[in-house]
């Protein structure tokens, strides 16, 4: 599903974020990417989204070489197959929960009947079936992250990328969010999660890839944080 082959990424300012990194992730896997700040976690996610291009090496997502995709059609199509969740939720404050999720379908041109069917369904799935008309500032942090997960999943992506999704949440809420991500993973979505949260990584016992100074220093199935 995801394949980084000997990838090096050097930014314009000369910082090398990744150095000769090779990672293979199978369909339906749940993978933690851990490591200190600046170790290359976010760069890895940005490469998968084709927000950055590798300086060297190849990146494949769902069988496509993402470097070769065109900005006209290829990159948007790639991103429709990848859901994204962030530490800061990235919700639109002037839209309701329903509108935040439906926005993701509207802007890729889905017809109204599809939107009206899928949005309540996914919001129900993440446990917010009764908050469709609330605004983000009326929700708790955990609920806002659920909206963001609903938005990421509403188009049924093959891959879910989560960048520190529990970074802003208390431990109990974090556990709820991890249960939800696990649920999303169980229905076949490949989940890649960058995190600092040791307790969560240790509790989940999933595959752990540890980065340090842009290199893979550990790749362990059913691993712990360190």
């Amino acid at each position, binding site marked *: 599903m995801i394949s980084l082959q000997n990838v090096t990424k050097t930014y314009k300012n000369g910082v090398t974020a990744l150095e000769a990194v090779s990672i293979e992730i199978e369909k339906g896997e749940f993978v933690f990417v851990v490591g200190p700040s600046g170790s290359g976690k976010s760069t890895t996610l940005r490469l998968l*989204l*084709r927000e950055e291009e590798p300086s060297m090496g190849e990146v494949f997502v769902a069988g496509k070489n993402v470097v070769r995709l065109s*900005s*006209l*059609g290829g*990159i*948007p*199509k*790639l*991103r*429709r*197959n990848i859901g*994204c969740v962030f530490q800061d939720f*990235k919700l*639109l404050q002037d839209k309701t929960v329903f509108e935040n999720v439906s*926005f*993701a379908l509207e*802007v*890729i*041109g889905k017809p109204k009947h599809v939107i009206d069917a899928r949005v309540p369904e996914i919001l129900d799935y993440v446990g917010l079936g009764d908050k469709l008309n609330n605004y983000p500032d009326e929700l708790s942090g955990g609920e806002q992250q659920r909206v963001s997960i609903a*938005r990421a999943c509403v*188009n049924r992506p093959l891959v879910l990328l989560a960048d520190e999704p529990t970074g802003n949440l208390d431990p109990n809420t974090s556990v709820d969010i991890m249960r939800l991500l696990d649920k999303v993973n169980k229905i076949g979505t490949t989940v890649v999660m960058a995190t600092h949260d040791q307790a969560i990584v240790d509790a989940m016992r999933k595959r752990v890839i540890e980065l340090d100074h842009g290199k893979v220093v550990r790749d362990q199935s059913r691993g712990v944080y360190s």
Partner: protein
Amino acid sequence: MAFAAMSTAFIALFLFGLALIIAREINLVIEAVTGNVQVAVYLSDPVRPDTVTRLQTELQQLPAVASVQYENKDEACARAKKLFESNPAITENVPCEVYPASFRVTLADTAQYGQITARLSCQPDPTTHDITCSEPGVLKVLDFRDILDRLSAITRVLRNGVLFIAVVMLVSATVLVANTLRMGMFARRKEIGIMRLVGATNWRIRVPFLIEGLVEALVGAALAIITLFLVKVFVVDQLRGRIVWLPLIRNGDVLAITPWILIAAAGVAIVAGTIGIRRFLDV
């Protein structure tokens, strides 16, 4: 900001239209004064048909002459009546026989005007400044080149001056529209970020902003067209009839330039759209 962009577009397009109208007006004046000929050869009375045929053939053969049109007394009379139609008192007591018949000559090469005067043996009269001719049947030659030159010089200066200001204003309008688009995109950067993330295409993201720019330019164009009609009604129409020989633009003339204003507005929108959203072209 949108208001600034719209009003600049309006002023720019109004000046652009004004330049076009001035050019049209001066063309009307030239048409009225000279009948669009460069040289008129007036024939002395009585006009003999064989003289007309002979002179027309001879003039036609001169290399400097592009075309020779014979205008008889009745045609000359009709033209004068049309010229002064807003003030018929001038022409109504003048019988048609008084108008001289003439050849109306268009020159292929205006510098070679001397060929005509030489052929007809004409001399400038030192007292009246008329150019009288000794060729039998020819009364005098009227040289419109000087008037034409002056009129077209005035046209050029006026039209180019207004056009220059219009171009400067059009550039400002373009920059302002582009800036409005950019600010709009900046204000919505979070939404745009999410749109990109979920896989919206570039066009899907840009089209609303391009439409906004087009609307701003077209509102400016509509206001400019309305104002030009108001100028025609409240300025030009007030002058009508006051200066008897002066033909003035009509509604049709204003209407004829509206497509150009709309094209200029579309140009502003396209250029502004291209430079305004360029920063957001990269996916």
